[in-house]
C-alpha cells in the first residue's frame, strides 16, 4: 500500500467536502493511503503572488517541509494547491539563495525544506501510480452509457512541467473509459473556468462558465467531471446566475472524478458526498444502479 502526505487544501474542508470524502473512499479501495498532512496551512491560492511572492513560496515550503519530515510524497486534490506547491518546490530547488532564506524562516517552526519529495495531483496518483488497469479491476458497477465531459481546467497541466502533452492530453478520457463510461469530445476541456474572477470580475467569469456549460451540453455530456474544487464550484454553484445573466436554461451536474469512480466501485452515493450539490446528481446515479 503506497502512502502519501495528503494536502486537502482550504476548499476541501467544507465547500468541496464531497471531493474530500470521495477521494478517501476511492483511495481506500485502490490501496492508497492518504495521510492528512499535519497542521498544513493555506497554499496561498493566487492572491498571495499578487502581493509578495517570497511570502507565497514560504507558505508552500512550510507544507512541503512537513511532508518531508514524514518522508512522504505530497498529493493535492486541488489544481491550484498542486500548481503552487509544485512550482514553489521547483523554484526553491533552482534558487539556493531563495531556499536558504526561506529555510531560515522555517526554523521558527522547526522545519527544513530540501526538495526531496515529489508533488503530485490526486488524478496523477490515480492514473499513473495506481494505473488504469488497477482501477478497471475494482469496477463493480460500470457506468455504461454515461457520457462524461472530462474537464481538465488549467492548472493540472499548465504551466508545463516536464514533457507532458499540454495541448491534447488524453488521460482524463482514458480514466473515464476505465470505469465503463463514455468520454465525450469536449473541445473546451482545457479552457479556464474563470477561477477567482468569479469574485473579482463576476460577469467575465459567468460568461466563461456559460461557454463551458454550453460546450459540454452540446457535446452530448450527461455530466462534467472535474479534478479541482474551484472549477467545480464555479461550474456548479453559478449555473443559476449564468442562466439569469444570459437568459439561458443550462443545467448539468458537475461531479468530481473521485465521485464517479466511487459510484463505479459500488460505493454508496451518500458516502461520496452526493446530495450536497446544488445541481442534482440524481440522473447520474441511475447509471450506477443496475
Amino acid at each position, binding site marked *: 500500500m503506497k502512502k502519501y502526505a495528503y494536502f486537502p487544501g*482550504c476548499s476541501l*474542508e*467544507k*465547500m*468541496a*467536502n464531497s471531493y474530500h470524502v470521495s477521494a478517501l473512499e476511492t483511495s481506500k479501495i485502490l490501496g492508497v493511503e492518504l495521510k492528512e498532512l499535519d*497542521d*498544513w*496551512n*493555506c497554499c496561498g*491560492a*493566487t*492572491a*498571495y*503572488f*499578487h*502581493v*509578495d*511572492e*517570497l*511570502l507565497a513560496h*514560504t*507558505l508552500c515550503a*512550510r507544507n512541503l517541509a512537513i511532508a518531508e519530515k514524514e518522508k512522504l510524497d505530497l498529493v493535492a486534490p486541488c489544481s491550484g494547491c498542486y500548481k503552487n506547491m509544485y512550482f514553489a518546490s521547483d*523554484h526553491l530547488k533552482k*534558487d539556493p539563495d531563495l531556499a536558504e532564506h*526561506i529555510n531560515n*524562516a*522555517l526554523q*521558527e*517552526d*522547526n522545519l527544513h525544506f530540501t526538495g526531496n519529495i515529489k508533488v503530485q495531483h490526486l488524478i496523477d496518483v490515480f492514473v499513473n501510480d495506481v494505473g488504469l488497469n488497477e482501477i478497471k479491476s475494482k469496477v463493480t458497477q460500470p457506468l455504461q452509457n454515461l457520457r462524461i465531459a472530462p474537464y481538465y481546467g*488549467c*492548472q493540472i*497541466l*499548465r*504551466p508545463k512541467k516536464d514533457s507532458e502533452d*499540454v495541448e491534447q492530453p488524453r488521460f482524463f478520457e482514458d480514466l473515464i473509459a476505465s470505469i465503463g463510461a463514455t468520454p465525450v469530445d469536449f473541445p473546451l476541456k*482545457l*479552457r*479556464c473556468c*474563470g*477561477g*477567482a*474572477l468569479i*469574485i*473579482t*470580475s*463576476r*460577469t*467575465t467569469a459567468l460568461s*466563461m462558465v456559460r461557454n463551458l456549460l454550453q460546450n459540454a451540453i452540446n457535446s452530448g455530456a450527461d455530466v462534467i467531471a472535474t479534478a479541482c474544487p474551484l472549477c467545480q464550484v464555479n461550474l456548479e*454553484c*453559478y449555473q*443559476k*446566475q449564468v442562466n439569469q445573466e444570459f437568459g439561458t436554461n443550462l443545467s448539468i451536474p458537475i461531479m468530481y472524478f473521485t465521485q464517479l469512480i466511487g459510484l463505479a466501485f459500488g460505493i454508496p452515493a451518500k458516502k461520496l458526498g452526493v*446530495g*450536497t*450539490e*446544488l445541481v442534482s446528481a440524481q440522473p447520474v446515479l441511475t447509471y450506477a444502479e443496475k
Partner: protein
Amino acid sequence: MPLRPSFSEEIAGLLHATHANPIKTCIQCGTCSGSCPVAKFMDYSPRKIIAMINADLKDRILNCNTYWYCASCYYCTVRCPRGIDIAELMYALKRYSIWKNQYKEGLVGPVFSETFVKTIIKSGRSYEPVLATSYLFTFGLQEMLMEAQTATNLMLKGRIPVLPPRIKRLENFKKVIQKIIPLGKPE
C-alpha cells in the same frame, strides 16, 4: 554601473529571471491574446500590454484592468513562442500596482488580494465568509441577492464553515512570516 532602467526593465526586475529582460524579446505575434479566455474583457489584450510596457506607457498601464482580469490559466505562458511567462508578468504588474498603491478605480481584485492575505496571516487558512466582505459591497442589489441565495443554499448543504479554521502552530507560523516580511505584529 547600471543605467536608469526603462519601465520595461523595471517590470522585468519583478520576474524570476532577472538576468535578461524577456519582455523585450516579444515579437507581437498575438498568440497570447488569441489563447486568452479573458482578452475581450480587458482594456488592452496581453499582446498590447506587452507592447505598451516596452513603449514605456506606465500611466496607462497602471490605470487599466488587464492584469487584474487575468485568471491565471497560463495558456499564454505555455504557448508563447519566445518563452515569455506572460501569466507571471501579469502577477508582476499586480504586485507593481499594489506596491505603488495605484490602480484603476472600481477594481475588486486588489482589495480581494489584500483581504485574502490578511486572513491567512491571521489563521493560516482561508475562510470564505471573511473573504466575501471584500467584494460583496461592489455588487448591485440583484447580484447581492443572488449571491446571498447561493450562499444560503450552500450553507444548507453544509458547504460553508461556521467557524474560521485555524492551524495549530499558529504562533510559529506567524514567526516564520515575520522573518520574510519584517512588519509590526499582526493583530
